[in-house]
């Protein structure tokens, strides 16, 4: 029987959650025995090659591309997991949610009124290349955009948490994480 497939992505995240996944150390060898990786930065596969059992999502949705990738994940994965606080709550990127989008741009790019940092931008242009995805009005947690089946909190969630959750899901067992793995204080 073919191995189940796992896909991963980093939306508006810092890749810290992916780093944590790599922190399972030598268990990565066991994981590769258990599953094949599909679309993921781990193997650099850019498009889905088929149906996946599990999709791991790092980061929330800050721009249109994030939304489309997430939508693609929902279409292709049986189970979607929001991994880490950015996926679950929006995290650090969502700090901009209290500021109107226009002001965010000005702060970042404009040299007017000394608003922006030391950017040489005499025409006060806001980057507007069709290649650059448009920003959303605010950063959305993933479950507000598509249905999410599981949430693994943490910034990032510890490697053991990711490991235990993945193994349980892939072997059809209930995800019963011990208290130490989901306590954060």
């Amino acid at each position, binding site marked *: 029987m073919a191995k189940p497939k796992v896909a991963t992505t980093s939306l508006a995240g810092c890749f810290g959650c992916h780093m944590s996944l790599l922190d399972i150390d030598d268990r990565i060898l066991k994981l590769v025995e258990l599953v094949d990786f599909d679309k993921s930065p781990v193997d650099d596969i850019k498009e889905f090659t088929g149906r996946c059992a599990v999709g791991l999502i790092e980061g929330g949705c800050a721009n*249109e591309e994030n*939304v489309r990738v997430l939508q693609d994940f929902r279409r292709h994965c049986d189970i979607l997991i929001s991994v880490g606080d950015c996926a679950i709550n929006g995290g650090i990127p969502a700090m901009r949610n209290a500021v109107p*989008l226009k002001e965010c741009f000005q702060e970042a790019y404009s040299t007017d009124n000394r608003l922006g940092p030391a950017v040489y931008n005499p025409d006060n242009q806001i980057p507007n290349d*069709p290649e650059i995805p448009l*920003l959303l*009005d605010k950063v*959305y947690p993933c479950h507000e955009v*598509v*249905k999410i089946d599981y949430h693994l909190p943490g910034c990032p969630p510890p490697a053991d948490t990711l490991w235990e959750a993945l193994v349980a899901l892939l072997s059809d067992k209930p995800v019963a994480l011990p208290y130490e793995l989901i306590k954060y204080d």
Partner: protein
Amino acid sequence: MSETLESAIRDISQACGNDRSRMMDIVEAVQAKYGCVSGEAMDLIAKQVSTHRVEVESVVSFYAFLSEQPKGKVVIRLCDDIIDEMKGSESVAEAFKQELGIDFGETTPDGVITLEKTPCIGMCDQAPAALINNEIITYLSSDLAREIVRKLKKNPDPKKLVGRLGDGNNASHLVHSMVHNNIRLAGEVIFSEMAPGAGLKNALALNPQEVIRDVKTARLRGRGGAGFPTGMKWDFTRQATGDKKYVLCNADEGEPGTFKDRVILTEKSDLMFEGMAIAGYAIGADTGIVYLRGEYAYLRPLLEDVLARRRNDNLLGNDVMGKKGFNFDIRIQMGAGAYICGEETALISSCEGLRGDPKNRPPFPAQKGYLGCPTVVNNVETFCKVARILEHGPGWFAKMGSEGSSGTKLLSISGDCAKPGVYEVPFGIKVREVLDLCDAEDTAAVQVGGPSGQMIGMNQFGDSICYEHLATGGSVMVFNSTRDVLTIARKFMEFFVEESCGFCTPCRVGNVLLKEKLDDIIEGKGKSGDLDYLESLGATIKAASRCGLGQTSPNPILTTIKNFRSVYEAKIAAGKVEEGFQPTFDIHAALQTAEGIAGRKSVHA
């Protein structure tokens, strides 16, 4: 100004005996005089009645008609309930806004006029209606609204706005209002001629137990909505230990669509006072209080006049009607715009000078009510029925109506019908017969019992109105086939969200969640599990809420799901969303700002 705030408050408090349980009267008087109860005023009141500032503040912040911030000399409160909306209150609202140059919740810069919205003010049969200070303005139109503002700008005296006077006592100099009674069907219990004292005289010839026995034999049940057997309630109160007992009359009439007590208070208050005196005799009370909703303040002078006449005629006072040792008098307590105060334990709290929070039960008011004393609380109409039962005998009364619901019931009918108004009908009457009476055409839905009751569809028009089938405290709202039951349910949910006292979480939070989900469905963002969600959350709120408000507040949604499920399902099916997205996520809306800044559409659009 010759009078300082301090001396004014001293006078007002002294007039109420510096009694902190009369807090409502004190703060209402201050509000009327100064247009607000300022922080300074609250401190002074607290000192005067020997309590803490927070006690005063909790009252002032609770009631819609009281405020810490100054309001205009004139406060316009436009009813924005569903019936008024159907009769065009939105264009009236626009006209008020334009002519005044302010939005709702604001005061004109000169501090003269404040504009507000309010739920049902009991004028549904002559909607759209507004309360301007204590004056009632009925049959509003946008033209009339503009004219009102112009007049008020010239002379900020709302009394001058009263147009052609209404019928009956509305035209008396004591009431002087343009309200119409709209009595469409006068039955023999409430609206037949009465000789003041007839029922009371018969009662005083019996002993108290015999009076209660007669009320029980008549099988009288409460007319306020819940339908509790009146005789049983009185018996409990009579037997409860306590030297001092009270009779409270619930004239709060807050359930949207109910206005029958208004008509009783205008035309038949004698009957009500008589019933209260009979209750006083039966349970051994010497004091009665009528809790009158703030919206009906315009009726107070008339009621005081009737009370004065009854005192004069020895129908109140000491040794009533020559009965040695039976002393009974009645005072009026004004409410201040809170629906929850119609709930009997909240009503008691309010009479005690507290926030209108319901109390835990047990103990029931019959054991521990007003000021901790055994108390009977009955609806206006219930007391009227008692007076008639004692006048004509329980057999006469019990012969009318249906098996489990004896006697007649006043219905207040509004909405899509040619003859809105008050109808006295025998219990057991079919909905269809009621619709015929009021000349309703093309009726698609009827809300029986107000928002806390139920919305029924055509297949239930054969059911009868009585406690066993369709219970109502009097509210019957008629909707024709052009109306959307979901929008109506949403309006009712807004009402409950606004009027929840906030004490318990299921009601305070749950109703908001129900309303938000309903909003989503109406906006085409519903998804398949939503009806299950609404039903299970609704059941939780009903089971876990502390008082009758929370226990009935999910009804607008639950009964429309039950009786109009297909309307919900059609809405949910029509609102198909892009594959994979949550129904509540709108990618186009989320991108709008960025598209505006970029000056172009998304490349994926």
